[in-house]
């Protein structure tokens, strides 16, 4: 029977790992991720979960161990944050190029120096080009549901790409919320056991990760991009099937809130996206046609869905919790790239905020919206990129 529990985002990620019947976990602690791996350690040591738990000596080894375990036929899981993810960087490329469906919870945290354990997306967005599918969650239920769906997606033989499920440190990682844990039988029906097309098997020997010359290298990279395109098609299908079975959907690629008739759409990711709903309601009450759209998947990027949003809106304002130094916020860059060459495209403005855990409240978002509405009125964006709430 489904069970309603109240727990933190991190513990819920641990519950999802258990529900997914992961075989091997390899993890190293880092704030604010630690309680994910503590929760899993509890499950494993009390016998609630039948898994091997490798307490590695670094995140680099965590990912290397997941790669070894996945190649040897195990369903694998790890979790990390910020510097841990950065240390894994080499192995992130390895995991995707080896086409191993590892799922990792990334508890988003700012990169140092100065040391900062609070949320922003600088860690995971810096890993954009590693070939990992990236989901971003906005509440604890979504963390659970997305991890389960992530296994179904990335183990699909048309995909076979590793997947990050990101949630913001402290904002979600250490905040308790009610979460429904579905009946295990239902999860098992939705997520069958890992059935890899090839493994390290002495009876069917193959060599993985050979030296490869320029004559063949590119083809393997092409297959990875094809796999991402397959993931692009499968993500909404899997989300719908999950929705039918468990009654929860999050809008596929983009959660749209009062966007249908909106002149201004506020585009963001993670919890800023849920905070923006409050702003939208307040502005709607005052007669402004504003909507909020929350991007849930950053890779593969929802290009067509952004185009679709832009068709009806006069203006798209993007709030980024990260900055690509010397350019703009990553979501802003990608959203603009998605609309390149479209006639009658919307006005676009980018706002940078919430770095290193700085709060972005509905009032901050309201200021962003009001500024945007002014741009919309005048038909001209006075400042293309602006930092929000900066001390001067």
């Amino acid at each position, binding site marked *: 029977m489904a069970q309603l529990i109240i727990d933190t985002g991190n513990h819920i990620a641990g519950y999802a790992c258990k529900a997914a019947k992961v075989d*091997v976990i390899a993890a190293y602690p880092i704030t604010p991720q630690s309680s994910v791996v503590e929760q899993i350690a509890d499950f494993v040591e009390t016998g609630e979960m039948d898994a091997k738990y490798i307490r590695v000596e670094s995140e680099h080894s965590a990912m290397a161990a997941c790669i*070894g375990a996945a190649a040897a036929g195990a369903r694998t899981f790890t979790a990390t944050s910020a510097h841990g993810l950065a240390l894994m960087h080499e192995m992130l490329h390895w995991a995707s190029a080896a086409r191993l469906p590892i799922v990792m919870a990334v508890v988003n945290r700012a990169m140092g120096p100065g040391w900062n354990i609070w949320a922003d997306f600088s860690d995971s967005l810096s890993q954009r080009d590693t070939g990992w599918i990236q989901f971003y969650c906005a509440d604890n239920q979504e963390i659970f549901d997305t991890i389960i769906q992530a296994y179904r997606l990335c183990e699909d033989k048309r995909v076979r790409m590793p997947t990050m499920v990101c949630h913001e440190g402290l904002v979600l990682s250490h905040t308790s919320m009610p979460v429904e844990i579905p009946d295990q039988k239902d999860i098992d029906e939705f997520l069958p056991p890992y059935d890899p097309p090839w493994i390290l098997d002495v009876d069917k020997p193959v060599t993985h990760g*050979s*030296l490869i*010359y320029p004559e063949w290298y590119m083809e393997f990279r092409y297959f990875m991009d094809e796999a991402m395109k397959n993931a692009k098609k499968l993500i909404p299908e899997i989300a719908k099937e999950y929705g039918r079975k468990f009654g929860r959907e999050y809008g596929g690629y983009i959660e749209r809130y009062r966007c249908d008739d909106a002149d201004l759409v506020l585009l963001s990711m993670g919890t800023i996206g849920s905070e923006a709903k409050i702003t939208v309601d307040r502005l709607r009450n005052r007669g402004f046609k504003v909507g909020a759209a929350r991007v849930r998947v950053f890779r593969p990027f929802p290009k067509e869905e952004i185009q679709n949003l832009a068709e009806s809106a006069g203006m798209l304002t993007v709030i980024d919790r990260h900055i690509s130094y010397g350019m703009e916020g990553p979501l802003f860059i990608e959203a603009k790239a998605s609309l390149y060459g479209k006639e009658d495209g919307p006005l676009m403005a980018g706002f940078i905020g919430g770095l290193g855990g700085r709060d972005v409240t509905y009032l901050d978002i309201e200021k962003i919206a009001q500024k945007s509405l002014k741009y919309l009125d005048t038909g001209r964006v006075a400042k293309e990129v602006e930092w929000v709430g900066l001390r001067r």
Partner: protein
Amino acid sequence: MIKLKELPKEEYFLPGNASCAGCGLSIALRLAYKALGPRTVFVIPACCASVIHSPFPNTAFASPCLNIAFEAAAAAASGVVAAYEKRGVKDVTVLAWAGDGGTADIGIQALSGAVERGTNFIYVCYDNESYMNTGIQRSGSTPYGAWTTTTPTGKKQHKKNVPLIMAAHDIPYVATACVSYPRDLISKLRKAKEIKGPKYIQILIPCPPGWRFPTERTIEMGRLAVQTGMWPLFEVESGKLKLNGPSARLVDKSKRKPIEQYLREQGRFRRLTNEDIEVLQKWVDGSWEHYERLI
């Protein structure tokens, strides 16, 4: 110790690999494979072995192999072992096979972690005393005085003793071996295969292009390394060190050939002055005194 006629006739390291003429590594791979048999899963980081065994789409291995990043062999092997344990796969030997750079330098953290966790695997460091695959650069395992492309006037530090570092981890089995003593090498791998937990074996691999000696003298170089005491053959079990084969009688310093006989045969030591040789000889003698205390 195994008799020569008991050696399996089957070849598992297959012809057609891309090793250099006189390559000590290819000899070691062939022997180790014969010792362990085809139910062996290799985990190989960046090193000569990763290049010579399987240029795509070919492979010279008769059993599965996972290639992995430079510093990650021991960690990836931990994952393979955990997956097999969880899946109930038995009678398979997981063998991490790394060079001295991937072991003494960039891979030592993952190695230390994996053996500390009690991982049930064999880790072989094939030691050619430099980064040979990248073009003969100095590693922590390069001996004092040796020329490499990054120590053009000779290395100023002594060789890192990884076998003793591993022994300090208090693991069930640590051994050294050399391709010039195949029966000793095979016996040690066979013994390691039967022991549960982490096993570490370091095999000295003379390398003609890296050490600068003629390709037909690989075995001779290994013999000289052992006979001069530059490379002692030993095992460490339960904290006790046991010298094996020809090394067993070399505790008596007078039985050891002067290291000069070894050094003079190799171009990499050509620039060594008499003072340098004295420094190195002192270090060799000192390390034997240390081994003696561990017997």
